[in-house]
């Protein structure tokens, strides 16, 4: 267990006193001056405890308490106070329920007392996991559920929706209610004891999951020591669930807002680690449970947009949003056509399939979306050699940003189907003139550059 203790104490004398007590007991001490520093320390370090003075940072003690209770419920919090607050806080000392509701392990009156501090720190502080004890079997159709693999379970300690285990076909037990605290140890216990690899949630809650993953990714990207593989896995889960939600519910203002956040998160991810392309080249090892094509298309689009000489931040966001939405028109195709590739369809079905870019444009005509994104959706199957659809445009007549997504989408399909890494895919793609002539050379160049830069970093 970590021996890191964070002190939130404004009085210099008291600060020296508590620091000495903790250091004498072999603890590593950090000091925060305000709530923002508390947040930064807590996110970057596994804290054993926080000593939080009642007068901390101009009376922000309750805000700080609230933040710690929700975001870091397993961290011990010891509140301290000086004599002038005796009347206010002495009763709370003996009020166990009251302290629990605040998320506080114990309260100590200053001056700090070594024995009392050590006694409080020595106490076990259990995160009260609120797993449902009754295992009532529920009969619910399988199609109402979506899955999360336990290994890809990215949550803080609060269940953002009801979580279930699947017993058999259409038979589930609920293990956590929405809004309750849970411990990741509990989840791992299910995995180890019951051999369960998946948790389930209602598909109607997937929008919440997308929103949560966006926020979680944003927090992850702000950490000083970025775990890039973890960030990539969160991004993959986010984009995969986003696109599934798009196909399940159709477009909405909330999903468009989430797309904007995905654009920002993707941009920040590429800025944080210049070796992203190198990681992506190893995607078959990193994502052993499988990867969504939508993720590859979106991240490749982002890489290309980031390496085009003429592109800026706005261009990047148009491209990424276009990549997320590009197949939106398939929602309006008959199901027997929507799920197939073009070469699996007969000529009549192909003609219907080729209407999906126009259908996508029609769907977006009522949405608050830029013309640039609409044209990416409309033109993402146009090819530079004029062999694309729906209008058979060629070369310069194709909207430049659409050409980015065309290449990213076709290339990700190529490597996905042939089980190739991106670099191996390039070795097959580039020498073949019949393939390469379909795509914009500036986009291909930018894509190659992203791997070259990654290699040299």
């Amino acid at each position, binding site marked *: 267990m970590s021996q890191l203790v964070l002190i939130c104490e404004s009085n210099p004398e008291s600060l020296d006193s508590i620091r000495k007590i903790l250091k004498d007991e072999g603890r590593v001490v950090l000091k925060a001056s305000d709530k923002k520093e508390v947040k930064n320390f807590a996110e970057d370090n596994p804290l054993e405890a926080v000593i939080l003075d009642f007068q901390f940072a101009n009376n922000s003690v309750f805000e700080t308490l609230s933040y710690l209770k929700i975001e870091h419920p397993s961290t011990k919090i010891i509140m301290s106070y000086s004599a002038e607050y005796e009347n206010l806080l002495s009763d709370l000392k003996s009020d166990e329920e009251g302290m629990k509701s605040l998320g506080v392990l114990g309260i100590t009156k200053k001056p700090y007392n070594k024995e009392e501090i050590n006694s409080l720190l020595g106490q076990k502080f259990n995160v009260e996991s609120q797993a449902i004890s009754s295992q009532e079997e529920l009969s619910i159709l399988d199609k109402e559920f979506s899955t999360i693999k336990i290994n890809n379970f990215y949550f803080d300690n609060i269940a953002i929706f009801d979580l279930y285990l699947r017993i058999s076909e259409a038979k589930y037990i609920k293990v956590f209610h929405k809004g309750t605290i849970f411990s990741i140890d509990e989840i791992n216990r299910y995995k180890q004891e019951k051999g369960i690899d998946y948790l389930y949630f209602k598909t109607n809650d997937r929008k919440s999951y997308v929103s949560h993953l966006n926020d979680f990714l944003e927090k992850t990207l702000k950490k000083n020591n970025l775990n890039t593989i973890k960030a990539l896995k969160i991004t993959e889960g986010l984009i995969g669930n986003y696109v599934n939600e798009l196909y399940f519910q159709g477009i909405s203002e909330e999903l468009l807002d989430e797309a904007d956040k995905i654009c920002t998160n993707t941009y920040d991810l590429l800025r944080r680690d210049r070796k992203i392309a190198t990681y992506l080249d190893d995607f078959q090892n990193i994502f052993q449970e499988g990867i969504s094509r939508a993720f590859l298309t979106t991240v490749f689009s982002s890489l290309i947009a980031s390496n085009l000489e003429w592109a800026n931040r706005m261009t990047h966001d148009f491209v990424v949003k276009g990549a997320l939405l590009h197949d939106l028109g398939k929602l309006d195709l008959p199901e027997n056509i929507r799920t197939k590739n073009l070469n699996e369809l007969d000529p009549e079905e192909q003609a219907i399939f080729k209407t999906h870019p126009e259908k996508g444009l029609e769907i977006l005509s009522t949405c608050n979306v*830029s*013309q640039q994104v609409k*044209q990416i959706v409309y*033109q993402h199957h146009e090819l530079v050699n004029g062999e694309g659809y729906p209008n058979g*445009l060629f070369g310069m007549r*194709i909207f430049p940003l659409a050409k980015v997504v065309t290449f990213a989408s076709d290339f990700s399909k190529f490597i996905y189907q042939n089980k190739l890494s991106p670099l191996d895919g390039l070795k097959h793609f580039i020498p073949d003139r019949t393939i390469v002539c379909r795509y*914009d*050379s500036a986009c291909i*160049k930018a894509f190659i550059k992203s791997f070259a830069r990654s290699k040299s970093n």
Partner: protein
Amino acid sequence: MKDQTLLVVDDEESIVEIIVEKLESKVSNILTASNGQEALSIIISNSYIDCVISDIKMPVLTGVELLKIVRQREIEVPFIFYSGLGDDEIIKEAVKHGVFDFISKPSLDNLQTTILRGLSTGFKIRKNDFSNNDFMNDYQKLFDLE
């Protein structure tokens, strides 16, 4: 500053003035027209237009009609349109003839960057110079094939 020429087409004089003001320090030649017909005459008689920025709805000849005629003459100069809400059907018709980019009305966001990019592309088309897009050197370097 490269010797590039921009053509601004709009029946609203105030819009033309805004665009000229934003670009005059960056672009060596700026021509203006108040409708599609005037613009067409300028384009036909001047082979050195590198980019056109045009309104869609104009008297005499609209922006889309102008684009169609220019493309029929196999002139591939980049076209940038201003677009507002409700223009989707018109733009869908326009893109069949090749539209380089769009500027939203009335904010004119990203105006300067978009026009400079259009001019750069148009200049390369005019000079037939796309050597900058040649990726084979980068490909060979990436795989140590030199």
